[in-house]
């Protein structure tokens, strides 16, 4: 009888989880593989085509915004009562997408989840670019965006101060703090990797550029000690911050008295929605990138499986939110609340509502099946449904609540114009163009954390935690 062969991939049996890093990697191999993407002399053709398309789309944004500044907000479909339309929909959609980055990098770090390691850098970059796209919308919605600095408290000749009791003002502080902290977290994580790039780069210009950014990092044990402390503290600070940001965003609605908005469930429901949207976007982007750059060793099926599970769990929370919204509208006995829900389900925007239920509640249930979670393309399609569904959710919350409030005399339909869509798709272009640049010029996987992972997985053996 032959000896049973040692199986380095016990995952095939389905009993042991696939590894977070495929076996056989060393410090040198993870470093070189990730760096090769950045320092490759030739830019891949796929990158050039992808970047060109994304750049064109971001030029659409530039065009739309220029036309807006020259002409005024009349080019949009916004009206009274739907004064907040695509701007706030897109703002909430983008900022929700951003939340997955902080969740992966901070909350999973505190929970010692090793599988965060190969996706955190990329997800953090996604956060930064999503927040940049998000912040654009309230600014261009100001009407006179060139005086946006009036939002900040500073002594000025008008002797005016912003209204600190308004959730819109809280938003200014929450989003700017979030953008700053995300940038800091991302940047300090990059410092050791920038040092690696400095030491490997052949091109003198890039060697100097990475050298300046690495600030003379040399990997001293004392430095690592403080670095790890700072990283941990930042994770601890970012965790309540990320929850607070979407809570404050939800206050923009919940503090108003409008039926359909004035609900205490909004903060947790918005945070769950942000996790849902963010993980969907991480999956949407990770799946093609790992394929294109051959990173299947680093971003394994384990990562995709875990992200799919988080997506499913967040989706169930969001579905609970929809259920409670409907239930409370009925239970409150308030005719206006009841009408908002009836109008969502049967009114002029009913197709959008049912599309939202399909995208956010029904389709994600496919993730209960392990076969779907292991099927990369199916997973990607589910994630795309969620991306669309989360946009529709904000559309429903904002437009259906605003367009028919208490007084039928003030009812009005809302129709988006081509400029609304140009701005939305333009920001998608900007987001993708920034991501393409990030992938080409900075390591998209945290190299030093992968080295640490090599060490940990060697100790635990294949299939370890």
């Amino acid at each position, binding site marked *: 009888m032959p000896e049973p062969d040692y199986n380095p991939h016990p995952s095939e049996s389905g009993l042991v989880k696939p590894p977070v890093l495929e076996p056989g990697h060393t410090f040198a191999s993870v470093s070189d593989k990730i760096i090769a993407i950045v320092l490759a002399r030739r830019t891949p053709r796929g990158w050039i085509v992808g970047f060109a398309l994304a750049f064109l789309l971001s030029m659409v944004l530039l065009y739309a915004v220029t036309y807006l500044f020259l002409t005024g907000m009349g080019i949009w479909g916004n009206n009274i009562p739907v004064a907040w339309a695509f701007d706030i929909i897109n703002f909430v959609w983008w900022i929700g997408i951003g939340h997955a980055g902080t969740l992966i990098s901070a909350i999973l770090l505190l929970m010692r989840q090793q599988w965060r390691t190969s996706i955190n850098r990329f997800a953090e970059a996604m956060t930064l670019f999503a927040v940049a796209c998000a912040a654009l919308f309230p600014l261009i919605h100001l009407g006179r965006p060139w005086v946006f600095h009036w939002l900040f408290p500073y002594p000025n000749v008008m002797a005016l101060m912003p209204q600190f009791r308004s959730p819109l003002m809280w938003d200014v502080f929450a989003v700017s703090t979030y953008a700053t902290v995300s940038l800091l977290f991302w940047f300090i994580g990059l410092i*050791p990797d920038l040092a690696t790039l400095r030491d490997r780069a052949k091109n003198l210009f890039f060697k100097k550029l990475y050298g300046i950014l690495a600030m003379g990092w040399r990997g001293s044990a004392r430095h*690592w000690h403080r*670095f790890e402390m700072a990283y941990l503290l930042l994770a601890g*600070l970012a965790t309540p911050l990320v929850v607070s940001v979407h809570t404050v965003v939800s206050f923009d609605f919940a503090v108003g008295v409008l039926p359909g908005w004035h609900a205490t469930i909004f903060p947790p429901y918005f945070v769950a929605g942000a996790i849902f949207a963010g993980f969907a976007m991480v999956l949407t982007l990770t799946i093609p990138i790992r394929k294109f750059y051959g990173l299947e060793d680093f971003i394994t099926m384990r990562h995709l499986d875990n992200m799919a599970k988080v997506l499913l769990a967040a989706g169930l929370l969001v579905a609970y939110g929809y259920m409670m919204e409907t239930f409370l509208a009925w239970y409150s006995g308030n005719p206006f609340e009841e009408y908002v829900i009836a109008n969502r389900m049967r009114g002029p925007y009913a197709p959008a509502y049912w599309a939202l239920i399909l995208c956010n509640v029904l389709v994600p249930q496919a993730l209960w099946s392990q076969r779907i979670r292991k099927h990369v393309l199916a997973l990607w399609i589910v994630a795309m449904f969620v991306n669309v569904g989360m946009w529709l959710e904000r559309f429903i919350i904002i437009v259906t609540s605003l367009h028919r409030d208490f007084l039928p005399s003030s009812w009005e339909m809302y129709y988006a114009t081509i400029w609304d869509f140009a701005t939305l798709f333009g920001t998608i272009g900007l987001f993708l163009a920034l991501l393409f640049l990030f992938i080409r010029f900075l390591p998209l996987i945290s190299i030093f954390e992968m080295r640490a992972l090599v060490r940990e997985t060697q100790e635990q053996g294949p299939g370890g935690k």
Partner: protein
Amino acid sequence: MFRNPPIYGLLAEFHSPEELLVAAHRTYQEGYRDMDAYSPCPVEGLAEAIGHHRTRLPLVVLIGGLIGCASGFLLQYWASVLYYPLNVGGRPLNSWPAFVPITFETTILFAALSAVLGMLALNGLPTPYHPVFNVDRFALASRNRFFLAIEARDPKFDHARTRQFLESLTSHGVFDTER
């Protein structure tokens, strides 16, 4: 004064974090204090092995957070109560519950800034030039090699004896590090 050549110190190369950790412990036991260890990823226990036990960073972050908290609240108090008091239906000017979100955000902002700037300041970064960079092989410290440096200013440092000592710890090379 002229006993030692004018060098920064000696740099020994290792191939694994375990070797470096053992060597760092041995060097510390030998009585050397002006030393440093370099690794491409954090190695648990290495900072302690070279005699670096605590960092003041958490205190810096706490102070930063408290300053952020106080300045966020005082900014809103000052603007709403002292600088531009606005009587809205007789409601209190110091409406502190409405000031909580911004106070929270400024707390986090200041604490995060002090974590990053504090880490850089305590580490003495940016430091564009450092003698260890003069050793060509040190470029591998950011890839897969580990280094231990003993500085010439250490009172126990003696070029020949220290070199011999380091060579007894590693077989991968000991390098003179120019200033």
